[in-house]
Structure formats: structure tokens, C-alpha cells
């Protein structure tokens, strides 16, 4: 699942930042990067919002977090 998040974020934040960001929050939330489940995505996406807001602004970060949460549905 983490590969999908990185793939989604890479065009915006770059590959290194996207990977580091996902890793950073997985460690912070004590989640296993490799074993992320779709059910954990909304919580993870919500946690990422403040950092996404640094580059995208709060409204943009909220939308991106929403779309990350929906990755489990294969919507994006």
C-alpha cells in the first residue's frame, strides 16, 4: 500500500520526499511501512496533513489527504 501512496505523492513532492514522508509518519504512528493496510490509510493521511500543508497549503493538504485515504478504494 505504501508504494501507492508514494506513487501518488511523487509528482507533487518528488520521489525522495514522498518516500521519506510516508516512512516518517509510519514510524511516528508505529505502523509497518511494508504492511500498511487500506484501513490504516485515513488515519495516516490525516497525520500527514500538517506536513503536506507546508508545501500545498492547508486546503490543498486536506484534499491530498482525502485522496490518499481514498487510495484504498482504488479511486486515484
Amino acid at each position, binding site marked *: 500500500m505504501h508504494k501507492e501512496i508514494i506513487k501518488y505523492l511523487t509528482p*507533487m*513532492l518528488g520521489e525522495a*520526499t514522498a518516500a521519506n514522508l510516508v516512512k516518517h509518519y509510519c514510524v511516528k504512528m508505529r505502523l509497518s511501512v511494508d504492511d500498511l493496510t487500506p484501513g490504516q490509510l485515513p488515519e495516516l493521511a490525516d497525520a500527514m496533513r500538517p506536513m503536506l500543508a*507546508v508545501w*500545498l*497549503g492547508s*486546503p490543498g493538504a486536506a*484534499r491530498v489527504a482525502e485522496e490518499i485515504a481514498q487510495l484504498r478504494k482504488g479511486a486515484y
Partner: protein
Amino acid sequence: MRSRAVIAPFIVSLVALPVTFTVVASLYGQAGSDRATLALFGATVLVEAIALAQVVRVRRLFSPGDSGHLTWTLITVFLVVRLVAEARLATLNFQLVPRYAEGSSGGLFFYIIVLRYLYTVSDVLFIGALANTIRAYKSTGLKFELLAQDFFYMLLVWAMPALTYLFHDNLMYSNTAGTDRYIVTFRLVTVSVGALIATLCLVVRRYVLQMGGGAVARVWTMVVIAGIARDASFLALALLSGRWRASAQFTEQYLLWVFSCCWLLTALFQQEILPRASRERVIRAAAESKAMG
């Protein structure tokens, strides 16, 4: 306005402008060169005005609590102050105001000598924006670090004011606005402030490289190019104006053209970061919240 509509004409201009200037200079001599540089000055101011309009739109994408809001507010004020300074310079370049001479009125001294420091004020605002961006990058807690070679590049950047000091006699060239003995001090101050801008740009550049590509990196790469072009414009002036006055003035203006186009692209790229569907929803949400007061 989309970035795609700007990139191609900008790239073409990078080649077309020097070629045009060379042709005009060889056909019409000094007068032709001056007119070509003045025309480029007018075009640069126009692009700066368009960039400002786009930067105002970018600022609206950030909430007041976001660090980006402060950054883009500083960039907005930086461009406003710069445009006021450019309007003042236009009145001098197009000879709408009498030339300053020793013994001129206090009002003329203030308008011509003091108000030129509006450029310095705008540069300080640019420094604030860059410093806030660096702080924002560090605040993420992700790995953004300077490397040893960055300090070497910074040393090279600080060679620019050193070289300018060395060639400071060249800074007192006579342009269409006339010459005064205060211009050297102004240019030395500006090139030093410019070196600080370039130093901060190098820090941002390193962080951008560490992002591994992406749309955000593209935005800040444009800012870095703008900052370096601004500083290089003064170096070019200092190095060239002793022997080739017309070419020096044109090169300075050409680099400022690069500077203004990069700011326009910065603002457009920032608006294009989000995937298109998200971007439209964010713009709609921002408009709705504005309508609700």
C-alpha cells in the same frame, strides 16, 4: 494562465533577445542599443506585473496559519515594492523627471537618490521569504541537509560582491537617467544583499535536489534561478560597463528579464502542483469560503 503558455516564449526570448540586440546595435549604434535596452526594461516590468497578479492568486491557496502563507505574503509585498521602484525608474529612464545634479532640490534628491533603496527594501523582503522557506523545510523533520560543496558554492557567491567592490569604478556608468556619485554606494549595497539572496538560494537549491524531483522542487528551482539572475545582473554590470557600456546595460536588463520570467513561472508552477481535479476543488472551496466572508 498556464505555465506551458509561458515556457516556450521564454526559452525563445533567451536566444532572440541577444540576437536582436546585436543586430540593432550593429545597425543603429549607441542610440539603437539604448532603445533596445529600454524596450526590454518595459517588457520586464510588464512581466513583473503579471507575475504579481499570479503570486496574489498563489497566496490565496494558503491559510493564514500555514508557513507558506507568510512566504507568499512576503513574496507579494516584495513584488509590489519592486514594481513601485520600477515605476520610479521608468520615470527616470523615459526622462519624465529632470536629471539629478549637485545642488538639485531636496525633493529631487529624495526621489532619485533615496527612493532607489526601494530595491533594497524589496530584496530584504525576498530574503525573508527565502529564510521562511528554509525554516519550513527544516520544520518538516525530514532529511534536508547542506553538503560540504554547498559551502564552497557560497564562497563563490560571496566572490561576486568582492569582484564588484574591486571593479566599483565601473558601476558609475552614465545611463539614460544620468549619473550621480551616490549610485556606486547603492550598487555595492545591492550586490551585497544580492549575495545574501544567492546564498539562501543555494540552501533552497540543495533541499530541492534532496526532494528527488516533483512539482514543488520545480517551483523553488525557479526562485533559485531568479535569485541568482538578480545577483549576476550586478556582477555583469561591474565587469562589463568599463569597456562595453551598451552591452553591460543590456546584459543587466537581460538577466532581470530572466528574473521576472522566473517569478512568473514560479507562481504558475505553484498553482499547478496539485493534480488537476484536486486543484479545481481547492480553488472552488477557496472561492466559496471567500463568498461566505
